[in-house]
């Protein structure tokens, strides 16, 4: 169940199991439609990507390909474990590993066609989704921003390019490079998955 560094405690598993049951209406497996019914998720601009991430085989194990229609609790937990905060006393290597795993998760969110690179279209799609909630911003704006972002990636990862060169898309390595500056630990973890702090449980009416 998940990577070793991302283990979750028994208590948390119990909580998640309850939640799983609630979402799947007491069945064994969870489907996309079950997740789509969550109300709060409606207002999230990237809900589809998030939902999709749960059904993406790449997130289940290292070399998975494609997506599934329904998942069991084990896969649910695996995906959730990406959001575990790293423990205090881990080595640098482990920290790096965790960082990679989290970034891989994000990368998979972008790379919908599973070809290993984020193309401009895919990136644009994400940016549009992100900005869709700001209202009244045209698609052109989003495109513009996405383009500028791609250019940044290219200039950082590949450096200056000759006029004939093409930039295919952002590979995972480039992705890592461009996001080197961001602190992942704080941003991509869910508090309750910390063993120390209390848990607020919110009962959703699904």
């Amino acid at each position, binding site marked *: 169940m998940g990577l070793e560094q991302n283990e979750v405690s028994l208590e948390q598993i119990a909580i*998640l199991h309850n*939640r799983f049951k*609630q979402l799947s209406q007491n069945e064994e497996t969870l489907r996309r439609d079950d*997740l789509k019914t*969550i109300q*709060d*998720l409606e*207002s999230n*601009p*990237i*809900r589809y*990507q*998030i939902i999709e991430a749960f059904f993406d085989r790449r997130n289940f194990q290292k070399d998975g390909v494609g997506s599934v229609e329904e998942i069991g609790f084990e896969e649910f937990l695996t995906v*959730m474990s990406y959001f575990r*905060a790293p423990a205090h006393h881990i080595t640098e290597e482990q920290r790096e590993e965790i960082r990679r795993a989290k970034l891989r998760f*994000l990368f998979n969110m972008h790379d919908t066609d599973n070809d290993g690179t984020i193309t*401009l*279209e895919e990136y644009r799609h*994400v*940016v549009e989704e*992100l900005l869709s909630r700001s209202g009244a*911003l*045209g698609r*052109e*704006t989003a*495109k*513009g*921003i996405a*383009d*500028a*972002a*791609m*250019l*940044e*990636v*290219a*200039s950082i990862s590949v*450096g*200056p*390019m000759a*006029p*004939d*060169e*093409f*930039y*295919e898309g952002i590979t995972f390595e480039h992705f890592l490079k461009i*996001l*080197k*500056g*961001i*602190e992942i630990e704080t*941003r*991509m973890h869910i*508090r*309750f998955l910390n063993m120390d*702090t209390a848990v*607020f*449980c*919110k*009962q959703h009416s699904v």
Partner: protein
Amino acid sequence: MPQVEDTDPDPDPGETTQAVFTLNYPRIQIPFEITLWVLLASFAKIGFHVYHKITVWVPESCLLISIGLIVGGIMHSLHEKPPAVLTSNAFFLYMLPPIVLDSGYFMPTRPFFENFGTVLWFAVVGTLWNSIGIGISLFAICQIEVFGVQDITLQENFLFASIISAVEPVAVLTVFEDISVHEQLYIVVFGECLFNDAVTVVLYNLFNHVAALEVVEAGDVFLDIGRFFVVGLGGTIFGALFGFVTAFTTRFTGKVREIEPLIIFLYSYLAYLIAELFAISSIMAIVICALTMKYYVEENVSQRSCTTIRHVIKMVGSVSETLIFFFLGVVTITTEHEWNWGYILFALLFALLWRGLGILVLTQIINPFRTIPFNFKDQFGLAYGGLRGAVSFALAFTLPDNIGRKDLFITGTIVVIIFTVFIQGITIRPLLKLMNVRKTNRNQETINDEIHKRLMEHTVAGIEDLCGQWSHYYWKDKFMKFNNRILRKILIRDNHPESSIVALYKKLELQNAMEVLDQMSGDISAAPSLISLHEERKNASKSRKKFLSSDVTNMHELLSKNMYKIRHRTVSYTNKHTLPDDITAREILMRRHTSLRRSLRAGSFHGTNAAKMSQKYFSLPMGRSLNSRFPPRRLVHAGDGDIESEINYSSIRHPQRVSSKAVMPLRPLNTLKEVASSVNTVDGQNEEQRGCRRSHLGSNVSRSGHLTSHLPHGSSRNCSDGDHDAWVEEPQNNSDVQHPLMRRPHWLPQKPHDK
């Protein structure tokens, strides 16, 4: 101008009492002396920066105190008394507000709110810990007969302790910035100092009041504690209220831009004064006011007003601070000191000890709640960076006279301040460097960073919703929704809902524009008009009227003189576009990242290799086909102004060319959605052009300066068939001249997808 003093109602030319030249000093004495002191302090500041090395090793506060000491020495030898400016009123009403407003206004909001809990924890609990700890230990020392200070009561000890626990950020923050410590540490120190001023002042008033009482009842104590909370919270609420009122007022100042800064200052000061009236924490009030209003105000006011506000706040704040340190030096020499070895040295010892202990203990408690815990180096930085300064001094100096040992306290405070400022201030830099405190990894923020930060936030929020858990993202999300839906509508004039990504993007554009203009040697007449143009977020017609062609010409010339460009083939990312001869030729100019400055100065304008150049402009020629008929050329213009203009300024004249008037600066992103200009003469064909605006710059626009890049919109439009390269179309949005140049990272060619 000689001032003739008319002592005689009937001037009689014969009398010798009437002088032609007189000096009427008393009349101007007060303003004159104030001006002289401020000027002297400013000279000192200027002087320090003559030798850059000095300020690197010795914090400015040290230098100021030294100068003060020297001046004090001079005055003392001349038996002059220092000006009686440092009265309680003068300090609390005139000198403290600017300092606090400065800190509050420039507090980086996002990291601050993320670390809010920690900041409050250290500020409030930390200061309490320090005050009480030091107070009690000193009281214990007082009991020892040897030192001869038994007459100091517990309350007075607490009072003194609270005075010397007030920490001062300025010197430390400069050091932190210089060695780029990581953000968390910076913000905690900053926030702590800010709020601990508030706490200290509250405690000071509390203990002052208590010290005056003969007998302290338990009930009084509880009342005081309750009062403490009322004061703190009251100040916060008050400040927030004033912040919102200010923001609301600025909504209506569209027509009276000149008084915008004044409104900001007046409201902030008013918040402070009224809080003083009700004896709630005025520091909290003004800080929270600044924090809340900053966000909304900066959207409402013009660019110039924004700059003015920032500058004035900085200026007044720094003047105030400078003066206080200066006086510290002066007063050290000129006052009557009461020295008591035991008491003072122990005070110093306890101050340092309790702070260190406090930080240690508090960090242990709060670390589990933090996502990035503080390690020992951080803690050392925090503890060692606790310099005392201006506020402590002022509080000590303005102690009421009924405190028996006032002079002792003043001496003690001065000793602590001088010790911490000199010894700790000078050594903290090498020590931190030695210890290799965690550095910030905050490089220049790129658009990618911003996008991904947002992405992660949304992801986490989504996952939280999914598993039904709450966390602080939930609250942030809720607040942002509230903000967007309600607050922004009320408080902001043109409410274009904007995401931070777009805001960052615009900011980067504008920064680049400003950078470019800064580079302009000589002619800066274009700069102001550019800035003022940015203020107009109006529709096309209006701004067109205000847009003078002479300005445009100037701008063109300036830009052309200082930019160089390269022709480059760019490739569209995606699909098809109509045939080359129809639309294609648009001039695109892109500029690559990194400093214009370097490239300009280095004079490395010969762009053979894009790599060497930090600046590149990629432009598409007009009217050319996409193919190799137009091979990539690099054109460089090294300041001679002869830019080859391939731009056709008048779209009217050449119907088949699309107007690539990359002449004028860009409009802000959010106005793109506004209706396309009516000048869209030429290519009636394209619905693709609906997003573009043509600039109708009039025929007297010179052909020479033609830069700018625009948003790479609609790049999908430009693919040529059958060619693996394509030109990317960049529509211009030129009617509202707003940013001269947009910085763009290297334009990426990519294989277009097949249909």
